[in-house]
């Protein structure tokens, strides 16, 4: 099918974008890789489409003193290529090949993925794991949101229709650490059935910090807080990881859907958690 008629606006600056969004029924188009399928099927019929692709300042990746800022319009393919990102957050380069397919990675953007908020998508999981901040701009000026405040439910975020995401900020971890990502999907490029990411710091043979992020098992990306707490301070060994794995499935409520049963999803959690935690631990120890 084809999109319903709409008014097309193409701002060149952030100020123009904010003005254009101040309208009854306006929607931003970034990469269009989630929005256009919905418009083609008329699941979305915005009256006004605000195309932000010409706002040059949204396309930068910059290092600041304490972290890295990634502009809203940075494409999945650009994030994968960025040596600056790979030097500080190698998990991003590792995760990107799992996001859709080549042509879609060339167009799809980071903020588009966050705002679409698919519970199995890679970017929401990465931002949750890396404790990033989402930078938002609206008529009342800029504000910031933590992942737990931003992602509310599947395809629902805390962003108003009159606001736009301008970028994300990822703080550098305090100590050298290891990171790892893995997922199970039906085919390469499909949305994950379950995805997992880990960040591990090891000091004097012990887990100084452990983070586990999971996607596809809840309404939003989640952290395995019970497992994280249990492992911190323990000897950094595979035995310790194994004994904590049952905690990884605590409180998870995956859904049955077309792609996988809830039981199958739950059964994948310890498998993937073990893989990413073990790998991150080994990287951290070297």
């Amino acid at each position, binding site marked *: *099918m*084809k*999109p*319903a*008629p*709409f*008014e*097309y*606006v*193409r701002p060149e600056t952030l100020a123009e974008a904010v003005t254009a969004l101040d309208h009854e029924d306006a929607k931003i*188009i970034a990469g*269009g*890789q989630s929005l*256009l*399928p919905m418009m*083609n*099927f008329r699941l979305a019929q915005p009256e006004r*489409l605000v*195309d932000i*692709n010409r706002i040059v300042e949204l396309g930068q990746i910059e290092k600041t003193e304490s972290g890295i800022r990634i502009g809203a319009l940075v494409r999945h*393919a650009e994030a994968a290529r960025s040596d600056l990102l790979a030097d500080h957050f190698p998990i991003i380069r590792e995760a990107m*090949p799992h996001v*859709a*397919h*080549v*042509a*879609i990675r*060339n*167009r799809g953007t980071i903020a588009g993925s966050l705002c679409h908020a698919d519970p199995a998508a890679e970017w929401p999981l990465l931002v949750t794991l890396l404790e990033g901040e989402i930078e938002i701009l609206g008529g009342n000026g800029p504000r910031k949101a933590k992942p737990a405040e931003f992602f509310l439910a599947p395809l629902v975020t805390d962003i108003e229709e009159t606001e736009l995401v301008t970028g994300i900020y990822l703080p550098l971890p305090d100590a050298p650490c290891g990171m790892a990502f893995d997922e199970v999907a039906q*085919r*390469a*490029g499909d949305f994950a059935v379950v995805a997992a990411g880990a960040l591990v710091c090891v000091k004097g043979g012990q887990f100084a910090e452990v983070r586990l992020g999971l996607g596809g098992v809840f309404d939003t990306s989640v952290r395995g807080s019970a497992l994280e707490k249990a492992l911190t301070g323990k000897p950094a060994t595979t035995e310790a990881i194994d004994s904590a794995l049952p905690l990884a499935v605590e409180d998870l409520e995956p859904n049955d859907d077309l792609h996988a049963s809830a039981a199958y999803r739950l059964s994948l959690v310890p498998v993937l958690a073990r893989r990413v935690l073990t790998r991150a631990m080994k990287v951290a120890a070297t």
Partner: protein
Amino acid sequence: MTGKTHIYLTVNGETFDACVEPRMLAADFLRDELGLTGTHVGCEHGVCGTCTITLNGVSARSCLMLAVQLDGMDVQTVEGLGTMRKMHRIQEAFREHHALQCGFCTPGFLMTVHDILNTMPLRDDDEIRDALSGNICRCTGYEHIVKAVRTLVNERDGVQTP
């Protein structure tokens, strides 16, 4: 602007100046306005890959772009790759390896291969399959497509095969 919008673009080396309704998809513009029907349309939601074109040198889905977004872009469609009499090397490799049957998926595969040969190492057949995972073929079973791409990768890398 619900009304028609002016766009200026280059398609296969030729410049065009057109007037389009904002809701017109890039794929429909290429096919219906410019008559470049080599770009096929299968699903209109980004899944099948047959509408793949290149934009400023990298691949994109023309069903997930608006014609107005082509403004200022350098577009290449399968028609820009080669001609019946003078095929592009990628097209020749597909013919040599019987990498097509009905041909519906072929334009999208050719444009995808054009991109991945430039941007990916494609060290083994698994990597080739992953890179082609965004293009669906209902006829060939993919085996011959992978062989064609393997041949092209070997040529690119100067690898001699017996």
